């Protein structure tokens, strides 16, 4: 299946070089942040002096940071639960049902993915202020109901698109066969449909989890008195650059990569 032999070209090596440079451009800044987490001086400057875990120790003692991390975890878990409860039926709705306003529903659901986060953020802010739901309501049980609902609203789209994509590829003949064999709808769902979308649902959940942990544009407008992790870091950044931020970034980076690797496996297994 190879193309006929042609003279060696000079484009391919150039392409590899360009690709390599772009790759470096994407990763070098991240590498810089991580490497400077081990920098043995409170001032982030050249030259680099490697060899301290001091900043990680500082981080572990930083109460504001730990509380923010806890709030972020709670928020992300709630966002995942809500987004799944709403997103999975939403995906089925788009895949299998006809109803008036279906196109509008689909477009609306995609909006938070397409619009700049700030627009969704200020919209939700006007909404919660209008209905009089305080930004800190629900605290300390949750970081605040508005931010929980806001994350759910913005991230349900992710679940819907992911699960919908899987449903579209699903072989409906299996479901029909199941019904022909007198399985009721619940049984068909339980034994046929759900197993084939399970990894998509799990994957979407993990994706929502990482996106919620990192979300800042919507969170910015909806947060009450308890900061989330990105906002706490933002607060530190505004005061200047400190290696503690690098340590926090390194931890977040490692955790996100771990979650994404799990997600990628789930998605790949299904191919």
């Amino acid at each position, binding site marked *: 299946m190879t193309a006929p032999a042609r003279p060696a070209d000079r484009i391919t090596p150039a392409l590899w070089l360009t690709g390599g440079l772009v790759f470096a*451009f994407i990763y070098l800044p991240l590498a810089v942040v991580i490497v400077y987490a081990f920098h043995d001086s409170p001032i982030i400057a050249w*030259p680099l002096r490697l060899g301290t875990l001091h900043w990680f120790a500082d981080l572990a003692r930083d109460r504001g940071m730990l509380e923010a991390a806890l709030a972020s975890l709670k928020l992300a878990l709630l966002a995942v639960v809500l987004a799944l409860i709403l997103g999975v039926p939403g995906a089925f709705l788009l895949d299998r049902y006809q109803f008036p306003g279906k196109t509008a529903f689909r477009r609306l659901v995609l909006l938070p993915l397409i619009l700049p986060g700030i627009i969704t953020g200020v919209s939700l802010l*006007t909404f919660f202020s209008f209905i009089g739901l305080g930004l800190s309501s629900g605290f300390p049980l949750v970081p605040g109901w508005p931010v929980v609902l806001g994350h759910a609203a913005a991230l349900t789209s992710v679940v819907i698109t992911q699960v919908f994509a899987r449903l579209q590829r699903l072989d409906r003949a299996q479901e029909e066969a199941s019904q022909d064999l007198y399985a009721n709808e619940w049984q068909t769902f339980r034994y046929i449909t759900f197993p084939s979308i399970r990894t998509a649902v799990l994957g979407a959940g993990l994706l929502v989890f990482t996106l919620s942990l990192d979300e800042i544009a919507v969170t910015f407008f909806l947060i009450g008195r308890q900061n989330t992790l990105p906002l706490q870091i933002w607060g530190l950044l505004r005061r200047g650059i400190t290696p503690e931020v690098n340590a926090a970034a390194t931890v977040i980076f490692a955790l996100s990569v771990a979650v*994404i690797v799990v997600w990628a496996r789930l998605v790949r297994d299904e191919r």
Partner: protein
Amino acid sequence: MSLPAAPTLLDRIRARPRIRTAVAAALPVGFVTALLFVPYVLLLVHSFWRLRGGVITHEWTLDNYRRLFGTSLYPDTILFSAGVALRVTLCSLLLAYPLAYLLAFKVRRHKQLMYMAVIIPLWVSYLVRAYAWKIILGQSGILNGLLQSAGLVDQPLTFLLYSRWAVILALTHIYTPFTLMPIYAVLEAIPPALKEASADLYASRWQTFRRIVLPLSIPGVLAGCTFAFVLSMGDFLAPQLLGGNDSALMVSNLVWSLFGVAYNWPLGAAVSVVVLLLTVFLLWLANRVETAMNYGGEVAGAPDRRAVSVGGRGV
């Protein structure tokens, strides 16, 4: 397999497709209406309300829009942001296309892994990626350190950070993987047979690229560029971190301050509505261009448009 029992309420609901649809729809549609549709509409409504003595009154007025378009301040800000976003889009496209091409056609081993490696930064702390540039470009940053130790400059360069260029650089860095995703998706979907046929017909590599690959990749390019433009125009954190005085010229920062310290929600809402309309217009335009160029999926192997349009953070 249970025996059929007497019809329950649930069975009766099941038996009637219309009611069934309504029940299935109630939760997601209700939630999306309450927490997406109503808020977006409320934003629009706020933009027609009046601020009187620091209090939002529910009186209809066009004053916010008059103020918005009455002076050159707000239109200039929108144009400035669009300029920044346009530069970011072009840079991202120039960086993303070759890498997407490489991944789609040249990488053979660990292709999926390499693609994931490019995409991972998207899901890893946005703030970290913006902040990294502060370390690199700062007065005592890495770039200055390197330049000084190489003897190229005596004094640290101060213009690197806190300018629109730093913002453009950081946003390009942040949104290049975004741009890459839909381009990669369309390139991946091009059947190898098409390229082979072109080569069999004695087309040169350039001709194959120009006549086969490039036209087929346009939908992905459009999707990627729309994302990069819209998201960089709406970015308000990277400019605050890296933009210095220039950051005040970004429209998203205007929205941010109008909803924050300035506490003028109606005017802020009006600016947001303009940005929202601009976004919707761009999406419509991209869609029109795509249709006009006849990429409706008729070409064999043309990628599923839906898969592309969902290619944002979602996929």
